């Protein structure tokens, strides 16, 4: 693209602020990435865990700030994302709003466009996926659409960057002329109600446009209702009257009546501008969908994808991880010792280096490909099919099908798992998905389980342990959904058609996520490495393991030294294996641990605590109290289950 990217310094005031708004799966973020490239930063909207993506570019002498609003279906008060978007548009007043819509389903998207028009900001309509629309025989009369809506309409094909520049041109043009669109007008009765409310609100000091406030009053929007009650309480009785009148005429709840108005206007507009030249034929995607959602084959295909992703991640990743943790680590260690020698202070410094290497050894081989592959599957459209298949099962844990995504990522590392829980609709579901994700055995746990049970006891026991861990995660979800207040939300999710993945978008998303991962995990991993080194040097470790011995050896039946291992394991779980080797001075663990002890230790490792990086993610996403509760719960669970299983195994003659 020809627009040069701004190396804008933070704090420089943009000349133009553009907000991208649209429903999910319309290619909004692809357009955002085309516009801003890597000149973007992702933060959270203040006080929330909803992502705010903002980027800058320089075009035609304008420094342009682009904000990617969350993908939403409407501008009600219903979800956090919707509230954020509408507050932003109504209160922050971006210079231009760009509404990205899917040209293949124009009617449905126009309903949202009408809501944006009500808000009265200058609006550009980006008709995205024009290639797909043309291919499926849909013709859209763009000029007519412009005329009816009274706003500029641009045809775009986001992955190819087509039309993206025109969006900027139109936005700048609108800004120059400072054109605000005409609000859409609805049926006679509704318009009459709106007019009377607008009149009554004439002298009120409102943070929102007057017409929009009137419409939202009729829709019984809680937030708007509250504001009007506060600023102009005498309008409320009028609103009540008008609402009951409207409900009498329409026979529906007033908000549904208004939704109906929008839907019928959208359908009228669509009939005037859209022509279907040939009927839709079943596409390759439809045929693949037959398989992907098949009651038996669907699950098989999902398992194949799952195994494919993980064998790729672990097969290739394992090699790379080894390089970081062994070859590079040893080489650096040698240099370090030559430079500083072996005494207390350099040793502490070395522990920080070691922590950094570990972080790289986790991020580059495991988390990077995992993110990349997951985003590819998502961008292609396959992940929603997994949600479709798994919804029924996940419902029993009080969450819906979308929750499989955080859980899948959890197998690589619990940190991305917890972060991915953001996709859930409500806070309650987010929390349940997060708690479940912390109980998924991650790649570090897999190293321990394979190294102990896999090597010395047998693969069948590894499988049993995994099933046990998944069951624990599931049952914890069930328990959490019983305890937490609120009702389970039903799944309403778009089933996107399959698309050729946009690798630029996938790469940008992978990179931004990876960066976020570093920000969250790095400080704690490095810091706790140093703290543990200090404990080791001060000789406190044996004292701690003595203190823990009633639990470790008394109840769990493990050697006393395990206390130290478990302390290290908090830092990063695969240290349990490394420390076991260095404490016992042997690599043949069968000499120091019995079969029973290996299984118990593996089980405890799986359950006993989220690692520091995961805990800090929980703190960031859910708050200190929740993070503490989850940690305490998991320690208690591991101790209880570990001891019980150890005794159970003894009864079955496994000692």
């Amino acid at each position, binding site marked *: 693209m020809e627009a040069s990217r701004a190396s804008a310094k933070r704090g420089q005031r943009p000349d133009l602020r553009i907000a991208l708004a649209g429903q999910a799966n319309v290619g909004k973020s692809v357009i955002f990435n085309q516009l801003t490239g890597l000149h973007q930063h992702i933060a959270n909207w203040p006080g929330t865990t909803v992502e705010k993506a903002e980027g800058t570019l320089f075009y035609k002498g304008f420094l342009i700030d682009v904000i990617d609003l969350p993908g939403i279906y409407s501008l009600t008060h219903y979800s956090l994302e919707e509230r954020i978007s509408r507050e932003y548009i109504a209160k922050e007043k971006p210079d231009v709003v760009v509404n990205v819509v899917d040209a293949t389903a124009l009617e*449905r998207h126009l309903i949202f466009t009408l809501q944006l028009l009500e808000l009265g900001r200058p609006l550009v309509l980006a008709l995205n996926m024009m290639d797909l629309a043309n291919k499926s025989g849909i013709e859209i009369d763009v000029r007519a659409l412009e005329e009816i809506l009274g706003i500029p309409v641009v045809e775009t094909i986001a992955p190819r960057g087509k039309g993206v520049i025109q969006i900027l041109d139109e936005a700048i043009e609108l800004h120059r002329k400072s054109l605000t669109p005409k609000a859409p007008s609805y049926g006679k009765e509704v318009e009459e109600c709106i007019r009377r409310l607008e009149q009554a609100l004439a002298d009120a000091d409102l943070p929102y446009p007057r017409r929009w406030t009137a419409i939202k009053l009729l829709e019984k929007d809680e937030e708007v209702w509250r504001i009007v009650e506060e600023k102009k309480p005498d309008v409320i009785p009028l609103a009540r009257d008008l609402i009951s009148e409207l409900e009498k005429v329409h026979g529906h709840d007033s908000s549904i009546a208004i939704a*109906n108005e929008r839907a019928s206007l959208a359908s009228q507009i669509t009939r005037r501008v859209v022509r279907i030249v040939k009927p839709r034929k079943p596409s390759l995607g439809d045929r693949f969908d037959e398989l992907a*959602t098949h009651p038996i084959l669907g699950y098989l295909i999902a398992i194949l994808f799952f195994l494919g992703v993980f064998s790729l991640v672990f097969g290739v990743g394992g090699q790379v991880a080894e390089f970081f943790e062994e070859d590079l680590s040893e080489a650096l260690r040698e240099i370090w010792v030559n430079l500083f020698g072996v005494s207390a202070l350099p040793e502490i410094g070395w522990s920080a280096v070691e922590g950094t290497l570990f972080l790289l050894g986790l991020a580059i081989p495991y988390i990077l490909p995992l993110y990349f592959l997951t985003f590819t599957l998502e961008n292609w459209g396959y992940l929603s099919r997994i949600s*479709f298949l798994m919804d029924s099962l996940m419902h029993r844990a009080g969450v819906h099908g979308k929750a499989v995504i955080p859980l899948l990522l959890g197998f690589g590392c619990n940190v991305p798992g917890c972060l991915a829980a953001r996709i859930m609709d409500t806070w309650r579901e987010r929390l349940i998905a997060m708690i479940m994700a912390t109980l998924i055995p991650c790649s570090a746990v897999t190293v321990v389980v394979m190294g102990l049970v896999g090597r010395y006891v047998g693969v069948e026991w590894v499988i049993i342990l995994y099933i046990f861990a998944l069951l624990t995660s599931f049952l914890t979800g069930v328990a959490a959904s019983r305890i937490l207040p609120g009702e389970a*939300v*039903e*799944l309403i999710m778009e089933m996107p058609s399959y698309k050729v993945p946009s690798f630029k978008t996938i790469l940008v998303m992978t990179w931004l996520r990876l960066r976020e991962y570093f920000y969250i995990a790095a400080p704690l991993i490095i810091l706790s490495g140093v703290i543990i080194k200090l404990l080791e040097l001060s000789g406190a470790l044996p004292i701690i393991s003595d203190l823990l011995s009633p639990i470790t050896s008394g109840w769990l039946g493990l050697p006393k030294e395990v206390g130290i291992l478990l302390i290290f394991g908090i830092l990063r779980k695969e240290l349990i294996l490394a420390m076991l080797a260095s404490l016992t001075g042997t690599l043949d663990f069968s000499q120091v641990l019995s079969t029973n002890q290996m299984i118990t230790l593996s089980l405890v490792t799986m359950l006993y605590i989220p690692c520091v990086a995961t805990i800090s993610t929980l703190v960031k996403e859910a708050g200190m109290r929740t993070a503490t509760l989850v940690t305490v719960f998991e320690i208690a669970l591991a101790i209880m289950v570990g001891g019980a299983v150890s005794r159970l195994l003894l009864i079955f003659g496994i000692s």
Partner: protein
Amino acid sequence: MLEEGQEGVVVAITPRARSFSLGSGFWGSFSRRFRWGWRRRGAAWGAVKRLADLGILAGTRIKVVRKAPFRGPIEIEVGGSRFMIGRGLAERILVEVKPVGSQPSLG
């Protein structure tokens, strides 16, 4: 209960599951009116509003594309795009089966 591939027109979306619906039954001739409490609407309400925002309202033509196994969600086609809707919610969408082409437009 609409079978896979069958089309129908939404008659109403009820707050609670009924025996005749998209999920589990066949709705006959008339729709009952429901009054929701004034400004006190539960989770069910949110779902109805969300469906309305997607353009799924009384009068909308819906096609059931497929149903997920184990009473999982239902995939529907509305105005050229597809959605999955949890079975519990789908059971509250009352539909009337009409021959193709005779559906009057929204208004």
